[in-house]
């Protein structure tokens, strides 16, 4: 027996169908954006953690070169600068040039002993010499 016409659901009109589709698309777009944002945030957080945990990580920022405010010639001792200034290579030249206006830091010096050695005529216990 065939169903009566009353048993069929009425077919929605074209306006209702488009509205439902748009709502579905918006919901889908929101979900996609939310997933993408969450994934990006998670990747950034994990990357930050791994940067500190994994030695030699390529994403890690390179540390700054060792700085020396008052540059002297390589073979010129501290405090005895002959006025010559060794020009560093690459980006260091720019960085050091950029520091020219800064107040010079104190030149570190070796720390002398509390007392200089004293003479002795007693039998030594050990020997200092080159090795």
């Amino acid at each position, binding site marked *: 027996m065939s169903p009566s016409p009353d048993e069929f659901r009425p077919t929605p009109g074209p306006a209702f169908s488009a509205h439902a589709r748009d709502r579905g698309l918006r919901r889908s777009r929101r979900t996609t954006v939310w997933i993408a944002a969450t994934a990006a945030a998670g990747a950034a957080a994990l990357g930050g953690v791994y940067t*500190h945990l994994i*030695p*030699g*990580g*390529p994403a*890690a920022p*390179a*540390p*700054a*070169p*060792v*700085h*020396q405010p008052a*540059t*002297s*010639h*390589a*073979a*010129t*001792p*501290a*405090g*005895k*600068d002959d006025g010559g200034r060794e020009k*560093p*290579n690459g980006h*260091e030249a720019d960085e050091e040039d950029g520091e020219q206006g800064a107040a010079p830091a104190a030149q*570190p*010096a*070796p*720390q*002398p*002993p*509390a*007392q*200089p*050695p*004293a*003479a*002795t*005529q*007693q*039998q*030594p*216990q*050990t*020997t*200092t*010499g*080159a*090795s």
Partner: protein
Amino acid sequence: MTTRTPDRFRCQVVFPALGTTAAMLVTDPVALPAAEAVLRAELAAVDRGCSRFRPDSELTRVNVGAGVTTTVSAYFAEALQAALRAARLTGGVVDPTVGSAVIALGYDRTFASLAPEDARPVPVSRPASGWRRIAYDPRTRRLRLPPGTRLDLGATAKALAADRAARQAAAVTGCGVLVNLGGDLATAGPAPQGGWRIALADDHAQPAPQGGPAVTVTGGALATSGIRVRTWRRGGRVLHHIVDPATGEPAAPVWRTVTVAAATCVDANAAGTAAIVLGARAPDWLRANALPARLTGLDGTVLRLGGWPADSHAPAPADLRGTAPGGPR
């Protein structure tokens, strides 16, 4: 091999380490085993971290990875900072980036396995890449060497090990301690009465001559640098291991041996090495830094600076006969 004396008054121990000799003296014989354990642990750590002859050392890993940023261990960081301190103190005269130059000269394996005569010509030398180009952040211990750079921490790492071992052994035992690593001496704790008695020689491993110069110290450190040890021949030239970073060549011979006293062995070692490299300019630099020093010229002429005493005539050093630091027991 360890040199020991059988009696219970033994106050010192001597054994080979780091391609040289390690010696430890204590003021209390009871403390010697504990102090020796500290020294041996320190030597193992510095060898594991800073040997350029061990393929598994951290230094080798860092050198192989030059050009790449890496994170170093706390121990290596301390050794690196000691080397950088030496470079700063000396205006770059002592520079840890001389590794490539030292290797190019032929010192590319342990000195004991180095051929004393190498017929190959000495290659054209190049200046060291320079310690200022090392990128290092002490907070994160992240390090990047310039590509092609090889560090040589040899001298300062040994001095640092002497400082650390003496300090730790004195802290552990509560007695006076002297650590001597290949002629680089550090002391800590109370000195024996009259001070630690130390013979001065060109070569720490050779028997000091009877009546040779000797001094006493009550604290701080002594280090000696010289060009008459660790020498080899290459291309008909006699080369030594103290390289001038400005040229990449062995330092021009002016002083045969330089001994410097300082508060720490790292500073004394840096100053002694700098004096060898500086040559004729060394006395002015040592005076400017108020460092007691004894410089022996190539002809044997001795120059004393900074209150270094006149040479006395001491008998030959105790030959590990178990004498207590205060005198024979």
